[in-house]
């Protein structure tokens, strides 16, 4: 069974000047354990699509039509309460800029601990600490013990992104949304983080929705690729198939 199914989803922004349709009639499904890359130019609605699934859209945006199913259950009309439950346990997200995604006034360890404690409030201090360090080891951050006590501004972009990923993994999610997670990093670190995604998928078996505008990044991690343009998802298929097609079209 598919982990996530989206049927005919449309999302609009309602501005005083009028309605803007950011996502138009999008349908796709996500298989367990796969990495689905959603590719498209900046502003084509990739990010809005993800945020509408986890219901973290800004106030002016709303789901207009369509249905979302998580593990066969419809979650389209879930209220904030139900979504909170899902976000803490089944959905996680990694963001484009790790430096702003972390709270500047909290140590990274505390931020990861917060996510862990939300799932098991009874956890003891020592266990909590061990779990945080375990997560930091999982994302291959060096000297996790020292790093846990540090603040985001003391870390490099790559290190900070590893911490964000560790936070996302704390919930042991079924679906991980990665919203351009490598765009703000330099090439070498980018490759490391992409390998980390592949490795984590092997270890933890979660499905990943990976957003990018960069075909090279997509080619490195994708099992399947969905192409978006101006709010519409116009093509979805196996990675090899899609890339061959694209190359073919260009010649």
């Amino acid at each position, binding site marked *: 069974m598919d982990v996530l199914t989206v049927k005919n989803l449309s999302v609009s922004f309602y501005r005083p000047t009028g309605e803007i349709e950011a996502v138009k009639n999008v349908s796709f499904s996500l298989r367990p354990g796969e990495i689905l890359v959603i590719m498209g130019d900046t502003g084509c609605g990739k990010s809005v699509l993800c945020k509408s699934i986890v219901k*973290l859209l800004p106030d002016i945006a709303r789901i207009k039509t369509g249905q979302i199913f998580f593990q066969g259950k419809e979650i389209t009309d879930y209220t904030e309460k139900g979504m*909170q439950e899902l*976000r803490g346990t089944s959905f996680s997200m990694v*963001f484009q*800029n790790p430096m702003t*995604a972390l*709270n*500047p006034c909290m140590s990274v360890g505390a931020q990861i601990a917060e996510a862990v404690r*939300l799932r098991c409030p009874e956890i003891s201090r020592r266990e909590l600490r061990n779990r945080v360090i375990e997560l930091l080891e999982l994302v291959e951050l060096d000297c996790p013990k020292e790093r846990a006590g540090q*603040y985001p501004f003391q870390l490099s972009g790559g290190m900070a992104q590893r911490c964000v990923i560790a936070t996302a993994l704390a919930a042991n999610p079924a679906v991980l949304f990665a919203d351009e997670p490598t765009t703000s990093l330099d090439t070498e670190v980018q490759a490391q983080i992409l390998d980390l995604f592949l490795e984590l998928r092997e270890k933890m078996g979660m499905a990943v929705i990976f957003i990018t505008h960069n075909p090279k990044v997509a080619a490195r991690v994708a099992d399947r690729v969905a192409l978006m343009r101006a709010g519409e998802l116009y093509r979805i298929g196996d990675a090899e198939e899609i890339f061959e097609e694209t190359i073919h079209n260009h010649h």
Partner: protein
Amino acid sequence: MRRRSLRKPYITIIEELIKFALSVFLLSVLVFTLARLAPGDPLYAYYGERVEKMSGQEQEAARERLGLDKPIPVQYMRWAKGAAHGDFGISYQYKRDVKEVIAGRIGNTLLLGGLGFVMIFILALFLGLFCAWREDKRADRVVCRIGTLTSCIPDFWLSLLLILVFSVWLGWLPSSGAYSVGAEKGFADRVRHLILPLAVVVLGHLWYYAYLVRNRLLEETRADYVLLARMKGLSGKQVLYRHCLRNVMPSYLSMMAIAFPHILGGTYVAETVFSYPGIGTLAYESARYQDYNLLMVVSLMTGILVILGNMFAKILNERIDPRMRLKREAQKEEVRGF
């Protein structure tokens, strides 16, 4: 930046002290000169109406006795010499040592100002949080409207309005003083006299700080880290308390440290209208009657409070914000390294 970072900590302290002394000196010169250039005759403070019956010669003699016949720089030197030894002269109006006059009043002002400050500090935080939580909902809008209205009403007018309603019409609360005659020690009586001036001090300042908290919080709720926190499964309210508030606190605390003398100064208006025997009424009277010595000490005290508030705010800010604190520690390491 680099040059500064190599300095030893005690040099910074000495630097701050020099700055402090210099500011106080400049302030004293300014107040001294301005007070003496202002129109009016200090002899009225000392002799009252009798001045008019004095002959020119007698007036000259009185001026000489009070040291008011010399040019201003000479007068200032004399004053500064005395002040350095802790002698601030006598109050012309009360004919007592300035220190005594102030000692009898300062407790009242600190009580009113301190209580007002604590209430503003706490209420502003709660109001700001409430409004940020209910952003643009009806509750937020209503609070914002009322807040803007109360902060726009001049303090003295608000005072008169409160006196009219609660003292004249309803007769619930006394309209002036700090205690009823003959009941100087009664706690309940004291509280009853405090309510109206305190209400004026709090209402006059509260919204400014609450609005500040609200807007800083709303800025924070638009930050990226809020999304990550929400994705952990935290509710919007939890993110506001646990994450946004933490980022607002350093600037709020330093803001409030600066605000302390400001709010204490705000008590001056309330004191004057309610004839509350505090420093504020003294400041008003001393300026009005050219009671130079008293005016000097009251202004200097207020000025020193402002300067100390600013210094405290700076130190506080460096202590709380991890970015500032760690930078400071890194600088110390650097110093040791050399």
